[in-house]
């Protein structure tokens, strides 16, 4: 986390705010609720208390405006710059402005007013930007459900104002996974148009042969419609789509766009209703089959016919000797299957049907 120079903060923990005008994108009550909830995010973890005024000067004056809106710090039209706020202080200090050229929403469609307001009020209380992609004070917008403050955010605001005397411990948003943690395991892995995408918690790493360093991003920053947790994923290169599994649902992505008609239920593939989650999935380009791993068994799905092959499920341990009986993620490259389970990676030769190498899972992340 970062603070503003000289750790600017409100001297009094009773801070007042006033909403000067409203966006036509939402009902007035929805704006009031988003603002109140955004302040609650910070009051839950500090002694700060926020009182709403309806006239006169408040510490934090909140308004919606477009382009040049009176502070010589113009907005830029739709997208791009969404809002800004001033650090604690007299006059314009603490004031928070939202760009009326944006579309303000109360769901995952861009841009969720509650989330942007919670971020901006962080500035109005003395927080600067954080470089942790999982923190609320990260400069780039991303949608997520649940309590938006990460451990990083909470540490930052409490070092300015202390803890909340009336409130027990708040469960922060989990921090971003670190790629070289020796115990790191993966949720899912897939190819995507020549890149490798590795899913872990709410994040994914993107690997590209020309990129020396894997790039970590929030799943929802790229695909807002996807859930925060991915169980399995695979690319069907023939159809240029990636299928994402989470629980009993599946999504189809064409690059960065969601394919019409999704999400669907995984049972549409022909899996029995008893299956509630797919652990790993991989398309074998040479055979056109997609293997779906569930607990200690796996199914084979014929992409061309669009049906499950008969004679399945079969035992993982029997058909892929040496990799154990469960799989977290799996990828296929040039005749080798790469099975990931916990922090281990098995390189398995599809033709000679045996394990060729055993490595740490995160060796794929240059660790």
């Amino acid at each position, binding site marked *: 986390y*970062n*603070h*503003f*120079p000289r750790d600017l903060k409100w001297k009094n923990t009773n801070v007042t705010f006033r909403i000067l005008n409203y966006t036509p994108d939402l009902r007035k009550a929805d704006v009031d609720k988003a603002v109140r909830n955004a302040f609650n995010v910070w009051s839950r973890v500090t002694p700060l208390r926020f009182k709403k005024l309806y006239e006169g000067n408040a510490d934090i004056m909140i308004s919606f405006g477009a382009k040049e809106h009176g502070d010589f*710090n113009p*907005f830029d039209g739709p*997208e*791009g*710059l*969404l*809002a*800004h*706020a001033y650090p604690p202080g007299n006059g314009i200090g603490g004031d928070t402005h939202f*760009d009326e050229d944006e579309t303000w929403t109360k769901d995952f469609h*861009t*841009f969720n007013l509650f989330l*942007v307001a919670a*971020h*901006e009020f962080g*500035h109005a209380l003395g927080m*600067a*930007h954080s*470089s942790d*992609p999982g923190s609320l004070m990260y*400069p*780039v*917008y991303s949608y997520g459900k649940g309590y938006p403050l990460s451990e990083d955010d909470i540490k930052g605001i409490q070092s300015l104002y202390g803890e909340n005397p009336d409130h027990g411990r708040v469960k922060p948003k989990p921090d971003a996974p670190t790629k070289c943690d020796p115990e790191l395991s993966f949720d899912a892995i897939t190819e995507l148009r020549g890149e490798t995408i590795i899913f872990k918690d709410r994040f994914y790493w993107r690997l590209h042969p020309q*990129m*020396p*360093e894997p*790039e*970590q991003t929030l799943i929802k*920053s790229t695909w807002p419609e996807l859930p925060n947790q991915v169980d399995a994923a695979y690319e069907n290169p023939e159809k240029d789509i990636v299928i994402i599994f989470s629980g009993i649902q599946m999504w189809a992505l064409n690059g960065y766009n969601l394919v019409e008609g999704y999400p669907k239920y995984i049972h549409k593939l022909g899996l029995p209703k008893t299956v509630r989650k797919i652990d790993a999935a991989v398309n074998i380009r040479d055979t056109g089959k997609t293997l779906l791993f569930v607990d200690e068994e796996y199914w084979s799905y014929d992409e061309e016919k669009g049906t499950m092959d008969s004679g399945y499920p079969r035992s993982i341990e029997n058909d892929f000797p040496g990799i154990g009986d469960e799989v977290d993620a799996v990828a296929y490259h040039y005749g080798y299957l790469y099975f990931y389970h916990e922090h281990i990676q098995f390189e398995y030769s599809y033709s000679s049907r045996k394990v060729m190498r055993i490595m740490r899972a995160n060796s794929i992340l240059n660790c």
Partner: protein
Amino acid sequence: AHTLAKPIANEEKDKLLLAEKYLRRYYDMPAGLQGERKASDLMHQKIREMQAFFRLEVTGKLDDNTLEVMEMARCGVPDVAE
């Protein structure tokens, strides 16, 4: 050849303008003329600052990943404390 050259030049120019605007607003890059050479050094230095902040590969060059982040919707408060 002449028409082909123009769109590429325009595209490059657009990227440069976007980056200049971004670095002025969020990384305190001074506006105005600083002389060709100094302006270019300054720009590379500010690009490196921004790449370091966003944990991108620090090259000082306006590569695709850097431009992609510059085009993302974000907060208007600078990333460097003023």
